[in-house]
């Protein structure tokens, strides 16, 4: 018994921020540079009263038009932007979608590695006989975590949700996983306040960093250079481990999808790892970095645009906040 990714759907909120919008808002911001180096032309952002749960609903609702919702027997929701501390958003989503009540549902808090972890859990649920059809949802609204004066992070991140249906299959199309964690990196990508350790400050101290971004501990902080260092040091060996664990040679891999952090970082990684351009996805032009949804969005785009075809082997690798990383090989 094995598992297979049956179908994917994603949802992008209606509002967009273009590079021209950013240039108007921040006079010293060079829009051509953002597009050329970071590879982003626009990013979608939720409205004030729209949440990750709302986007999750939209992504799932569309997917379930082509699938009997009675057959969904587990719901996994990856988000770092829950509606409430409690209850967990997955329970609310189960009800909103009208899924059966005799199913499991829970949230898990991960960022850019989240889709891979969700796949690993979904596969485990299926292969252990607990479930037959797992609905894995990734939904993130970093726009709500970012200070309105933080032009660097506003430029990079976009909001999105993706819904992926993973089902039982005679042949296993989701191969073995390599997962990793290193909490030493916690301070390099963090929203410091708002949890139980540090409450949200009513009058937070604000400061401008060396690049001219407004910051406060109530909002997202990303140490770009350190995240870059973590990635270029750790991801190439993880890539090799994924191949080794699955006894697959690189030549047998038809296509590679990494977490779509930004064009510059992916270009550097690709060159460092000698991955041919034509086998490597690098496109967040119209979405920005959508955190846990970049991989399922890329995967759906690749399938819809026939960049990959049935029978192809794809290596997927997510990495980021935590630090946390994970990768696997799937067959389409």
């Amino acid at each position: 018994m094995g598992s297979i990714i049956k179908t994917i759907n994603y949802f992008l909120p209606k509002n967009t921020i273009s590079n021209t919008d950013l240039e108007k808002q921040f006079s010293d911001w060079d829009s051509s540079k953002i597009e050329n180096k970071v590879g982003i032309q626009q990013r979608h952002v939720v409205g004030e009263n729209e949440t990750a749960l709302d986007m999750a609903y939209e992504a799932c609702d569309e997917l379930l038009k082509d699938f009997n919702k009675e057959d969904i027997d587990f719901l996994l929701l990856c988000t770092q932007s829950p509606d409430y501390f409690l209850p967990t958003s997955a329970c609310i989503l189960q009800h909103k979608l009208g899924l059966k009540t005799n199913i499991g549902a829970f949230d898990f808090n991960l960022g850019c590695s989240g889709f891979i972890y969700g796949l690993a859990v979904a596969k485990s649920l299926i292969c252990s006989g607990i479930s037959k059809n797992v609905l894995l949802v990734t939904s993130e609204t970093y726009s709500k975590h970012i200070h309105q004066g933080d032009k660097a992070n506003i430029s990079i991140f976009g909001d999105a949700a993706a819904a992926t249906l993973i089902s039982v299959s005679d042949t296993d199309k989701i191969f073995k996983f390599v997962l990793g964690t290193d909490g030493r990196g916690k301070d390099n990508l963090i929203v410091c306040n708002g949890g139980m350790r540090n409450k949200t400050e009513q009058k937070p101290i604000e400061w401008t960093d060396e690049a001219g971004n407004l910051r406060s501990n109530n909002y997202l902080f990303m140490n770009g250079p350190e995240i870059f260092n973590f990635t270029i040091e750790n991801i190439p060996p993880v890539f090799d481990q994924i191949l080794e664990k699955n006894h697959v040679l690189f030549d047998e891999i038809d296509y590679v999808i990494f977490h779509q952090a930004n064009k510059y970082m992916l270009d550097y990684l690709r060159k460092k790892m000698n991955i041919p351009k034509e086998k490597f996805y690098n496109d967040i032009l119209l979405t920005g970095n959508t955190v846990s949804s970049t991989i399922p969005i890329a995967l759906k785009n690749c399938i819809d645009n026939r960049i990959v075809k049935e029978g192809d082997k794809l290596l997927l690798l997510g990495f980021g906040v935590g630090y946390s990383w994970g990768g696997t090989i799937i067959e389409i």
Partner: protein
Amino acid sequence: MKKQEFIEGLQEALEIEKIKLDENTNLIELDEYDSLSVMAIIAFVDNNFSKKLTGIELASITTVQSLLKLIGLENFSD
């Protein structure tokens, strides 16, 4: 690698076209120098020296020469 070779490579990595870099150029005063430049330097040094520079270390550099010192002059052949 010779220093001059490094400086020419750095010029290309930072995509600086208006002036020609030399050891005394103050990098952080250049219009082109921004947060992406820090990543470009990390990548360029990683690629050529297999040496990891941190963001904190790079925040302390000013001139090209201070970058050469940070990498370690023993890593250059002249």
